[in-house]
């Protein structure tokens, strides 16, 4: 796939580009031995794209995911998110970006076990500084969006796996993030439930949500409109596919 813009250092991304990485590298110091997990990844993702990132283990897809999710900072290269260069922000600014721009969906759901579904969904709003009433209203709306309007006061252990992941999706959406970032979202689910979650993603995508999903399952990646495959820290292929 051709890049919408040939990006050079010093440029700013085009307005409709949500994610832009430019020669992104990440090296880890593993007890004196330097592991170069990413070796110069340049990728651009437009608003309302649905992208699957694939690759075998060790290909660097988790590293790329962490960088895109602003959980980590690159060794070199640039990362622009929603028109803002985030590759050189400090810890607190990254926390703010994570809060405002990114909605995480994890393989293991990562819900607080003792909190109700509603409270779990409220969490990002607490860190955004929203008032209690506004939090409840927005969290309730997000839960309704994923079809859990009647499960708000349930705790995670009172919900099925698919329902838990939908709570997590509601939590990811509650701040209206620029991107929904899903890391193996169906990895802990059976195929029927996986299908449900993929249906939720498809609906969100249709409503205009940009989705980046890391997976190693081809049939899950098949739901995405574009598949970026990594190998040895580099992009091996970048293909559009029929939905």
């Amino acid at each position, binding site marked *: 796939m051709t890049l919408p813009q040939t990006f050079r250092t010093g440029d700013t991304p085009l307005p409709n580009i949500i994610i832009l990485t430019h020669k992104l590298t990440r090296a880890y110091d593993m007890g004196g031995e330097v592991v170069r997990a990413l070796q110069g990844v340049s990728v651009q993702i437009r608003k309302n794209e649905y992208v699957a990132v694939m690759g075998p283990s060790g290909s660097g897809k988790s590293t790329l995911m*962490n960088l895109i*999710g602003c*959980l*980590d900072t690159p060794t070199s290269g640039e990362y622009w998110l929603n028109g803002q260069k985030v590759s050189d922000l400090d*810890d*607190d600014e990254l*926390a*703010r970006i*994570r*809060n*405002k721009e990114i909605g*995480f969906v*994890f393989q293991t759901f*990562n819900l*607080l076990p*003792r909190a109700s579904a509603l409270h779990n969904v409220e*969490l*990002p709003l*607490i*860190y*955004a*500084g929203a008032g209690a009433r506004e939090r409840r209203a927005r969290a309730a709306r997000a839960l309704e969006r994923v079809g859990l309007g009647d499960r708000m006061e349930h705790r995670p252990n009172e919900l099925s796996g698919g329902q838990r992941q939908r709570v997590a999706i509601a*939590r990811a959406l509650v*701040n209206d993030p620029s991107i929904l970032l899903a890391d193996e979202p169906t990895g802990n689910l059976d195929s029927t439930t996986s299908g449900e979650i993929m249906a939720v993603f498809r609906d969100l995508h249709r409503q205009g949500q940009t989705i980046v999903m890391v997976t190693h399952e081809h049939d899950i990646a098949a739901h995405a409109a574009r598949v970026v495959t990594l190998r040895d820290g580099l992009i091996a292929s970048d293909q559009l596919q029929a939905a």
Partner: protein
Amino acid sequence: MPLFEALRLALQTIRTQKLKSGFSLLGVFIGVASLIGAWSIVNGVNRYMTEKFAQTLFGVNTFQLRRRPMFTPNVPDSVWRAWARRPRIRFSDAEALTAGFTVPVVTAWQSSENNTVTYRDKTARDIELTAASERYFEIKNLRVAIGRAFTSQENRSGAAVAVLGDAVAQRLFVDRSPLDRSVRIAGTAYRVIGVVERQGSILGFPLDRFVVVPALSPAQNLVNPPGILDAFLVKAQSEPEMRLAMDQAEGIMRSRRHLRPRQDDNFALDTSEGVQRFWAGISRILVVVLPGVVLVSLVIGGIVIMNIMLMAVAERTREIGLRKSLGARRRDVLRQFLAESAAIATVGAAFGVVAGIGLTLLIGAASPLPASLSPVSIVLGVIMGAGVGVVAGVYPASRAARLDPIAALRQE
């Protein structure tokens, strides 16, 4: 995250983990409870000393002429030996003073020694036998409940009459009236003419185990060598008059003893202030020792809380990673764990306050120690408790705040 959220979260965590939180707040609980309890005792004894003891038992505006001060903490041996070499107070000293005062005063002689009092086959041992003059009762605020005190005539003539303390009357006569019965002190028969109202006890020492007889009665030889007094008691009508009387007493005594201007007094003029100084000396020791005990339990409490918090941080690493991924900044995480540890400690301190108040009531009701609750100790207890929580929480909370979200999320 606003402080309110952090506190709400902290209380929620304590609620859901009652047992663990209960153990972790034990140290602070004990520290604060013992602080308040011990403070109450010191405070209570303090009040007792200044109000009841000084005012009632010693007597208002009263001083005593003695060979040496009555209450003296930490006196070196050399001073003791010097005191022991001093001349004793003589009857003639007392008479000279009585004649020499120009301010209106009430005076009494007093000599005391432990002895045994018997009535038929009943015996009361270790009774404080006091040979005193008739105004002794007035100065010491001893009200005679049954019968009467002896008169100055009886005193001068050395009548063999006795006024009993309540405990002695109880011991020897049980329910019968002791009036006009004959008790024996060292073989001599004394007619009981009165019983003094019950005095209770001070710091566990009973105040009713005494017998008062006239200063010149046969018992005078049991309490002191002939012509010698333990103390000469002087009660003035006001504080300035007492000072004046003290100056006069000092002058008279110095001239009677031919002391040169450079020489120190070789007698003591004790006031209730002396007693209070004595108590102040003891309470100073308590004030030094007490915070030590409280400090130890608070430090232990702090260490326990720190450990529990470190465990909590380890257990909730994933939660911390998640919160960070959702936008929690370092200071949000720091605040969350600080609030939690402060809340644990404050809840412990609150329980400690309740227990301390209970302890105070219990001590007041079930022990001879007078306990009086001090609001300062409650405020101090809560502040210290919460402070311990914050201090103990700093290290675990900063560890939590520094966690790398990626590593934290990966934690099983």
